[in-house]
């Protein structure tokens, strides 16, 4: 095999070198460059562009914090706890995998048996001061219960600040209004999942 193709390091033939004058080497040359730049009037070109855009009133600035940019579905910001669409109950089953996998050890939870003999999460907290937003918790979650949301503002008065379960849980009225966002990052169901599953025989 020829290695010629590897020797040609031109990424594309469309590339061209910018025509830049050589730097002046002596004092006279530098003096001439200063005079030339000073009287060229490029300053006014810039001023004109600003003035023109101001008059057109076609402004693209995002008025942060009043306005926020839409954020990609895979962005990993402050966690959210999701509810089941059908019943509205919490998806979290308290398996503790997020607590286990967390590499910065910022998730801590308490579970107990509830009056229906089911496992209940009685306390849940994430220390956002320690969280590195790696996304492992969302990836490992077998129920798609803990996911990352789009709330990226983490400024706080203290280094350690916590979010509790209730803060992260989708409010029930939001769910009813159909406003719960499904997570599409790592750990979410991939397309064609059904085709890859081996069926278990059932005697019914």
């Amino acid at each position, binding site marked *: 095999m020829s290695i010629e193709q590897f020797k040609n390091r031109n990424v594309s033939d469309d590339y061209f070198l910018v025509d830049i004058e050589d730097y002046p080497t002596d004092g006279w040359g530098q003096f001439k460059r200063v005079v030339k730049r000073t009287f060229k009037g490029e300053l006014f070109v810039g001023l004109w562009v600003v003035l023109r855009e101001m008059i057109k009133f076609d402004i693209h600035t995002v008025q942060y914090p009043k306005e926020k940019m839409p954020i990609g579905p895979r962005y990993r910001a402050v966690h959210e706890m999701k509810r089941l669409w059908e019943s509205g109950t919490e998806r979290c*089953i*308290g*398996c*503790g*995998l997020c*607590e*286990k996998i967390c590499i910065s050890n910022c998730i*801590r*939870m*308490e*579970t*107990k*048996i509830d009056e229906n*003999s*089911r*496992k*209940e999460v009685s*306390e*849940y*907290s994430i220390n956002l001061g320690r969280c590195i937003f790696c996304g492992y918790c969302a990836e490992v979650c*077998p*129920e798609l219960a803990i996911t990352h949301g789009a709330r990226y503002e983490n400024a706080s008065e203290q280094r350690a600040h916590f979010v509790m379960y209730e803060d992260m849980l989708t409010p029930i009225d939001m769910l009813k209004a159909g406003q719960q966002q499904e997570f599409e990052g790592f750990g979410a169901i991939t397309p064609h999942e059904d085709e890859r599953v*081996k069926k*278990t*025989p*059932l*005697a*019914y």
Partner: protein
Amino acid sequence: MSNITINIDGRQVQTTEGEFILNAARANDIFIPAICYLTRCSPTLACRICLVEADGKQVYACNAKAKEGMNITTSTENIVAERRAIMEVYDVNHPLQCGVCDQSGECELQNYTLEMGVDSQSYAIKDVARESKDWGHIHYDPGLCIVCERCVTVCKDMIGDNSLKTVARGGDAIDAEFKESMPKDAYAMWNKLNKSIIGLTSGEEMLDCTSCGECAAVCPVGALVDTHFMYESNAWELRQIPATCGHCSAGCQISYDVKHTDIENSDDKIYRVMNEWNYVSLCGAGRYGFDYQNEVKAKDETAFAYALEAFKKADTIEFTSTITNEEAFIFQSLKEKFGYKLVNSEAKAFQTFLNNYSEISGKSLYGSDLHEAHGADFIVSMGTALKSDNPNARYAFNNSISMNKGAGLYFHPLKDPVIEGISKNVVSINHAPLQEEAVLYLLLDLFAEKSKLPASVAEYIASFHSEKTITVEETVKEKVVEIVKVTKVNEETGEEEEVEEEKSTMVSKKISKEVQVDENRLLEIVGAPANFTESLEKLLAKKENFSLIVGPDLYTHPNAKNLARLVALVEKYSAFKLVMIPSLSNTLGVSLICELDDAKGSYTIGYNTKGDFTLSALGNGDLDMPAMNQQEGTLTSIDKRVNPTNAALPYKGYVLNDIAKALGLASKFTVDYTQKLPTCKGFKAQLFDNLPNRYENDGTEVRGYVLDSMDVKTFSDEDVAPLSEAKLEGSIIYLANPVRQFSEFTNKATNLKEEAGVYMSASFLESSDFNEGDMVKVKTGSGEVTAKIISDNKIEGEIATLPTFDSNLNSQSLFSGYRFTLATIQGV
């Protein structure tokens, strides 16, 4: 048993003749999968996954015995197929709720499913409704159960409660097509599995057993769970702290599983206690009585200053035996330095008993341990309420009988339905209190080599025998032939007709006969059942290993000295191997380390007991001390082993060594004393940090070290005083705790809530004028207490028991030494 060599997968392996292949492999780190087998228990043959090929034939490794030169292959093509099919069967209808299962990954079903590479399912059957059940301290979820029957096996072969059994599951039969298509063993295993589920032997709704929780510990899946632990924590969050249980003298190896308390509090909390259930079985107190720690916020400097003042004033230190060897050594060092009197009446009694025993035996310690008792095939227990004094001794009693085709004798005044329920090969003899001497003389009479016994003793025993002529009625069977009419279907015509037939029956006939018999008055004194001689003969058939367990009733007996000498004679002149049950956790250690005094002086410092100044790990004293789960140190067990224990929980207050340091003893840490324990008493000069605490794969106990038994100078005098005919008759009370309670520490544990009172058997209660819950006044020669009557179905007979675990009851004030006493019980 002779040593043999077998070949497993091309490896030469040394083992003993008759050992199961599975155990031989495990001892040599060769992996054979097995689910239902429990070391020390009988093979169940439920899982069939331990299939191996031995000399070209498929056998189950758990019940096939190794023979010299055997060639074993652990995996062939067929075996692999069988194992995979078996794991697929186990996965049929198993709920996919691993996320919330309390086994949380410590699951043998998960492990073996992955190990066998099960990635698809070929079998199916219609599931039946399996509701989960609350059995009290245990929770059973039949949906998760794989019916390996380990719980049933351990309850029967090790614990002796026989509380669990398999019951019918109901539901469809397996589809016939599977019989042809499936591997043979997998089908047989499925057939059995599909018919059964675990249920209670009693048929009741709740478990009524001695509540050891061993069934939940051995469960390979999350079907049986301790109720207190349900959904409390994932196993992987817990850190294991290797320790030694400090509740009784068994000194079982346990591990405290700890984790932070909650999301706000990072201090450790004990969530459960686990054990190496293949090699050690716990009782309910060890398993559930773990949160008895003494929580102290900070060092209380004023109380410490008072404590130092008190030590300067004091002339006596009184303590209980629930302390480590190191603490005992600190007390002894303080005694040597400042001349304190050390008072511990229960350890003193044991110490005196041991010394008296040594005078004849010539050894400082009894000869055997519980490990040997497990291997015995004839086991005798006397002078102890076995199930509550030392549950592990009871397990040894049961295990030796159920595993070695053994038999046992249980001598105790208190009738015990648990012991009697072990096997029909246990003869329980309820002698009168104070008659323990007669029992030992009887043992000498029945088992000792008379020719070697001291002449006076042999003569004395012979004096109990007399010849007697009695008339016995014998049943003889005779054959009688008669003609009867039977209705039969005529095969040719198909009609019913009457036919005459000759029928011979055996008829018993009674004949009277006169025979000369040897009458043994000792049998009558101890109250042996009428046919005892004949039944003993049957029990003794083919027995080789004899074990004798004696207990705390003897140490405080008025004739304790005599008893100690008799016990020594039994050990010396019969085949019995002797184990003594030390009365409390570290009674043996204390009695070896401390020189104990009888009488108290004028100012007493009490350690875990009331004194003029009280140091207490119970949180009710003048200065707090750490409880056993908060300190490191060593404990001396019934097996004469010095076992290390570690601190599972933090302790922020002062410890005994701080006082010792302030008083001028030089060691920085309490465990620095471990290497200084007296070697002249059998201890070894070993650093605490070098003491191991584990079991090997072959079951070898590698824990701490075993005490050396020292030679003691004996006197040629081996005479024993004749038995005193005194016995207690009438209304008797006995000082014994219910199972799962030992001391104030077990009383503090939240999972062991037990009410203290006067325990009466149901039959006794019925025949008395009292009802359960009545307050009564119990009065003896030494004192009186008022207590509530509690019905206890774990005792029978007409002796009421009073516990020691609740000091509010002050039951000890009723007794003057001996654990039985006469008492009047009156309604209030």
